[in-house]
């Protein structure tokens, strides 16, 4: 229970359904004040009080589990290391994979619980992960990395409801968090300044910004501050010959080089992704499988053919995609059903 409206209603629903429910709030920092406060994020002192108050209203026991060390190692350090390697990680996805459905789940099972329920907007049906009925709030993408085993111990009570319905229900249940704003951004970056956060940890080493031919157009203050597909903040004073904007095409951490170019060069149609997870109804496809793929949270969905060979996933898109960043997950869908996922390694 993060202290937000979703987990509060999720807890209320399963308690009402007759399960023996215990509320757990995760302490993710040894210094909670350093995380985002109140309305904007999660994991602060105020949020833990909100969560406890919700548990009291629902009438379930409530405990705080200290996951600060695991979170720091598996999410925060992973986040920094991924950027250092020129990739763009999704820390929420990593938190689901390593904290909520690994560290928390393992401890819960050992203590005699059967499952972990969360307020994620996604459905589970016969062990299969499906999109939420509220497509705008769907979170199946950040859960797509879970294994069948993890999903078999998961409960997502909110997947059949829209966010508006959840808020309405929270108000009707007398939960004070009914109007609490949604969390945004990254909970462990207190001021929302991702670039500053990374600079503090990785240093700010200047490097070249080059075009596709290798010509130097400018300098940057640290390659990790960029994301593939980014247009703003390049600070190149020389305009392009045709006056069109430049985009970040790739980031090379070893040479500390950022390559930029026209939007057309961003388009990719072939993707290679590592560490595939097959958690859907189908076996790993060794022949091309026609399905859909989502390449970032709340991103567009593309038709594709996906195939596993040599332990990696090869995806051929039906139409080119832009802003495909290494480190993000490629989550495969058939309709609303998640088939599996893998971490994007390269694209062309």
């Amino acid at each position, binding site marked *: 229970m993060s202290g937000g409206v979703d987990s509060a209603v999720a807890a209320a629903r399963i308690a009402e359904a007759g399960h023996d429910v*215990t509320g757990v*709030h995760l*302490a993710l920092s*040894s210094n*909670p004040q350093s995380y985002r406060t109140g309305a904007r994020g999660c994991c602060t*002192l105020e949020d*833990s009080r909100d969560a*406890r108050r919700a548990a009291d209203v629902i009438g379930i*026991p409530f*405990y*705080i*589990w*200290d996951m*600060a060390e695991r979170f720091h190692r598996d999410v925060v350090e992973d986040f920094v290391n991924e950027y250092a390697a020129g990739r763009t990680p999704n820390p929420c996805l990593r938190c689901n994979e390593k904290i909520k459905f690994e*560290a928390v789940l*393992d*401890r819960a099972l*050992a*203590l*005699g619980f059967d499952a972990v329920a969360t307020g994620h907007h996604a459905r589970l049906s016969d062990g299969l992960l499906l999109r939420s009925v509220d497509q705008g709030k769907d979170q199946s993408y950040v859960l797509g990395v879970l294994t069948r085993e993890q999903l078999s111990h998961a409960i997502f009570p909110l997947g059949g409801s829209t966010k508006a319905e959840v808020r309405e229900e929270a108000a009707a249940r007398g939960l004070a968090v009914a109007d609490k704003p949604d969390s945004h951004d990254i909970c462990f970056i207190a001021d929302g300044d991702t670039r500053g956060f990374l600079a503090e940890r990785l240093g700010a080493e200047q490097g070249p910004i080059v075009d596709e031919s290798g010509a130097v157009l400018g300098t940057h203050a640290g390659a990790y501050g960029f994301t593939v597909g980014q247009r703003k903040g390049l600070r190149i004073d020389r305009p392009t010959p045709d006056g069109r904007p430049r985009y970040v095409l790739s980031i090379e951490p070893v040479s500390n080089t950022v390559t930029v170019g026209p939007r057309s060069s961003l388009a990719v149609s072939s993707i290679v992704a590592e560490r595939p997870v097959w958690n859907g109804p189908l076996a790993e496809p060794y022949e091309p499988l026609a399905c859909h793929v989502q390449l970032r949270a709340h991103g567009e969905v593309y038709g594709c053919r996906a195939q596993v060979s040599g332990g990696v996933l090869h995806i051929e898109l039906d139409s080119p995609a832009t802003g495909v960043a290494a480190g993000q997950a490629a989550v495969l869908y058939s309709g609303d059903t998640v088939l599996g996922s893998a971490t994007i390694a390269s694209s062309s």
Partner: protein
Amino acid sequence: MAYLDHAATTPMLPEAIEAMTAQLVRVGNASSLHAAGRRTRRVVEESRETIAGALGARPSEVVFTSGGTEADNLAIKGLFWARHAASGADRVLLSAVEHHAGLDPAHWLGDRQGASVELLDVDEYGRVHPGTLRAAIESAPERVAVISVMWANNEVGTVQPIHELAAIAREHGIPFHTDAVQAVGQLPVSFSGSGVEALTVSGHKVGGPMGVGALLLARGVDPVPVLHGGGQERDVRSGTLDAPAIAGFAAAVRASVDNREEHAARLRALRDELIARVRHAVPDVILNGHPDERLPGNAHFSFPGCEGDALLMLLDAKGVECSTGSACSAGVAQPSHVLLAMGSDAVRARGSLRFSLGHTSTRADVDELVNVIGGVVERARRAGLT
């Protein structure tokens, strides 16, 4: 349900409920001059006399407060300020196992007011040796502003040699404060006989209401106030006196002191049974604190391989209520400073639970605990390994 957390708070005694409710329906401010005020003042002053009589103090030595924390703050901060202003004394000596109501005011004085805070080492049972205090004082006796050592520890129940410690302070003319919130009603406590200058009592630990307590303050010992205002209590504590709570508090102190010997003997027998049966169910359990010099209602254990949080949660789910006895920061359990000071490592400190008995405890409570503790420890051990 087995409530084994009487050191956190204990149910109100019938005498206290009766005395308090009788006052709740009456109007009157003890500071008012009219008949209603006089009537209320009479209740307050009779309560003061009752408490003084039960604890070996003069009525004028009883300063009512909002509870133990306020009394500790008044004693430690107030005496530091007074002595510092008078002589420049800047040292504050406390045992390393004090409650946070004592430690935190002292550390605040250190951080913000120029005090030099020194924690007195304790032995493996949590006891301060008289020689430790003597050596600490004698390094610069004229600079010691105030000394505070609790009468009995809230976590592990260890009883301090208060009379000996107070006598050493007295040799040097240094005011000595003791937090006796856990001791009153379980141990013989006499303010005048103890040799201390200031002593903290709390209402809800002895079967009175929450939100009321007292600092017993010897004549001629005048701390600088923490709360300024009407000066109702000897000009060292301000605020309208809570006459109903004070009446309930006095009734509880009277009853718990009157019944102390019989009550303590009963608790000690029940507590010893609890310890023996928990040891039988969990053979590698470690009893913390002194084997004999401990509060009769206290049993404090470390369960190797377990996290105290997990044990507490599993016991709660089985209807057994106890405490990890450790301080919380943002609700996250920190290893107890008391156990660490006693030489325990952080892992053992985290795997600890306090069971504390009180006037409503029965053998059935112990049965309930013993019936589940083996299974709970086994399960917590499994979780501890993940």
